């Protein structure tokens, strides 16, 4: 038994549209329970930890300002990072897209004669689908983050960016470990499960001399990379191997070392509800006799510069991947992450994925939100996700509305008609009358509508609708005026 019992597709070019992709999840009570329980726990911790910070709103503003400033001068800070990192003994590579990043990484691994590589959790490597690519190149990648191990061994896909195996519960983890590690009498006690993972990992740490990481932050001033984690697996990967390859999106750079003061505070509290995450690793280039002696940074664009160039959308790149938006999202709480068809689920995924796809794929995602605003309220760098969702919706409509297929689409037809109707009061009032007469056909004896055709059927699948009243408000008002009240 695995966590999902269906096979989600996390490739936006192949994934089914969101309203279809959610169906197997909505019919899976175990999965929904796992997701809701997990994010409720994280959310409660976050709320407690945020509440104890009296200057939380100021911290958010500072976080937003640092990220916005970094993006406004992104080119300069990236160049500064390259200069400082190189001076400290690192090698910086620039990758325009996923393909180039993958080729650079494979080339480095070939030079190292590496047939195996250990990995610190990195969503960016999932974005460029690095593991299957490495496997095809004859290089076996081993995840070392506990959740990533569960996914890798259970052939599962990540459903969250901070706790990627959140959809899998303890007994499911036990089964995955028991099967893949060949431990028949494994109990589902967390201690036993952790011990099994530790045994499995230790061997990798001791034998594999090459590692891949992502980056939480790149510090321009010092050429440093910062990684935060909870398990110490990152620390192991950063000390034992000879070679470290860091893959980072170009937006990860911040100007000064001092900026970490703000960023690390808002990240830990938002992501896991901790005052500080258990392990914070910072390194600059290489240090003789200490840690990896060969260090590469691959800076990945993969559509980010295009987002950077757009006024409303630019804020998407402020994201520090804390996942507070998905933990607070009432949609995500019901659907989990897989339905988003991307390694970036939840509200941030709904705006990031279609943009990374140049709006050619994942077009249902900007509509996968009720615009409730919970994501914006918790975002530690104040990304106005609803605003970006609306901007993307508008772009999609402009892109699609000219197409013949959309001309008779009930939604497009309805909204065009509604605009005409709302532009003249007499048309609006006539439409109300016609609507009432038309809906009478569907109105039951109790005065309620139980079943509607077409788009209306989407409403009546779970909800009744009260039949339209005889007299709209404006009619009542007019009659009252006539009577002189």
């Amino acid at each position, binding site marked *: 038994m695995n966590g999902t019992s269906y096979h989600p597709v996390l490739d936006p070019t192949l994934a089914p549209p969101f309203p279809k992709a959610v169906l197997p999840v*909505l019919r899976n009570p175990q999965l929904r329970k796992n997701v809701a329980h997990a994010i409720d726990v994280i959310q409660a911790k976050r709320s407690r930890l945020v509440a104890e910070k009296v200057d939380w709103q100021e911290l958010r503003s500072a976080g937003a300002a640092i990220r916005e400033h970094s993006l406004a001068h992104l080119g300069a800070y990236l160049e500064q990072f390259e200069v400082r990192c190189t001076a400290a003994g690192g090698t910086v590579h620039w990758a325009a897209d996923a393909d180039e990043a993958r080729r650079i990484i494979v080339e480095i691994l070939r030079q190292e004669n590496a047939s195996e590589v250990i990995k610190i959790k990195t969503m960016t490597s999932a974005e460029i689908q690095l593991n299957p690519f490495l496997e095809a190149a004859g290089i076996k990648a081993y995840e070392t983050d506990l959740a990533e191990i569960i996914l890798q061994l259970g052939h599962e896909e990540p459903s969250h960016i901070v706790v990627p195996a959140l959809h899998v519960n303890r007994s499911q983890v036990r089964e995955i470990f028991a099967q893949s590690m060949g431990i028949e009498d494994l109990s589902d006690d967390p201690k036993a499960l952790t011990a099994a993972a530790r045994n499995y990992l230790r061997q990798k740490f001791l034998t594999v001399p090459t590692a891949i990481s992502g980056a939480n932050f790149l510090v321009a001033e010092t050429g440093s990379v910062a990684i935060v984690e909870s398990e110490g697996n990152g620390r192991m990967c950063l000390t034992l191997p000879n070679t470290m390859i860091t893959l980072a999106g170009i937006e990860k750079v911040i100007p000064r070392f001092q900026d970490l003061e703000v960023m690390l505070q808002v990240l830990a509290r938002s992501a896991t509800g901790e005052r500080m995450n258990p392990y914070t690793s910072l390194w600059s280039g290489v240090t003789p006799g200490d840690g990896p002696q060969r260090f590469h940074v691959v800076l990945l664009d993969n559509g980010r510069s295009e987002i950077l160039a757009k006024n409303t959308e630019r804020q998407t790149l402020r994201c520090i991947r804390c996942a507070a938006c998905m933990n607070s999202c009432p949609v995500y709480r019901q659907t989990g992450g897989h339905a988003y068809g991307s390694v970036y689920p939840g509200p941030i995924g709904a705006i990031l994925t279609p943009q990374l796809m140049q709006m050619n794929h994942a077009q249902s995602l900007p509509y996968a939100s009720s615009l409730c605003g919970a994501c914006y309220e918790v975002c530690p760098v104040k990304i106005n996700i609803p605003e970006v969702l609306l901007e993307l919706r508008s772009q999609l409509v402009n892109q699609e509305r000219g197409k013949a297929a959309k001309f008779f689409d009930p939604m497009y037809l309805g909204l065009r008609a509604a605009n005409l109707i709302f532009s003249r009061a007499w048309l609006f009032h006539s439409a109300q009358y016609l609507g009432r007469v038309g809906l009478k056909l569907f109105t039951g004896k109790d005065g309620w509508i139980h079943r509607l055709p077409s788009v209306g059927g989407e409403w009546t*699948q779970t909800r009744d609708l009260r039949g339209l009243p005889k007299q709209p408000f404006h009619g009542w008002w007019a009659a009252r005026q006539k009577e002189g009240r």
Partner: protein
Amino acid sequence: MRASLFITCYNDTLFPETGRAVVRLLERLGVELDFHPKQTCCGQMHANTGFRGEAFCQAKRFVRMYQDVEAVVIPSSSCVAMIRDQYPGLFEELGNEELRRQFASLLPRVYELSEFVVDQLGVDDVGAYFPHRVTYHASCHGLRGIHLGDRPARLMNKVRGMEQVSLANLDRCCGFGGTFSVKNGEVSSAMLAVKLQDVMATRAEFCTALDNSCLMHLGGAMHRQYAGMKTIHLAEILASTEAEPAEALL
């Protein structure tokens, strides 16, 4: 004080009783109320679905219609949020300087109903009587969009005879979201199911809110499920008196 009622398109069409209650309530509080007969819609449905060009048309219409009034009162927080959050961007994009100026001068005179009563009229006790067990649902737009804060509670606390039951997970969306409820009907329904559990757990007779859109969603499910609870806009509770009880009770 004079004010003009913007009833909103869906209240006009689907919930005229809310409009009648607003009229009773505000006139009882001494407001000289007016109603522009040519009003239609604020454009929220279009803007939120991505039809920005169409939303422009409605936004222009709204500003031209109300530019000279003393105050506009709207019994729907989501429409007020549309005007406050989205109109500025629309008018900037439109690049019509005169319209932008007219809007800037109108904006501070646009009020959601509870804002108008509490802030402008300075009244908490509207003299209402509603002897029933009631739970309040805070709509997302009221809560996070226009930050109604404690205004609804201040008004409800003064309603005589009413027993209030607080709703768990008050800040969680009911899943309506306008066209979201039909574009993502299944997810919307799943969110509704979860919200309804909390609402029903209050064992209230009525679930109230300042947005009939959420109430249409919740009430539609209650009716479908024979759930034994009704929805009622807060304006109808506030308008209700011993002599003239709310229409929902008749």
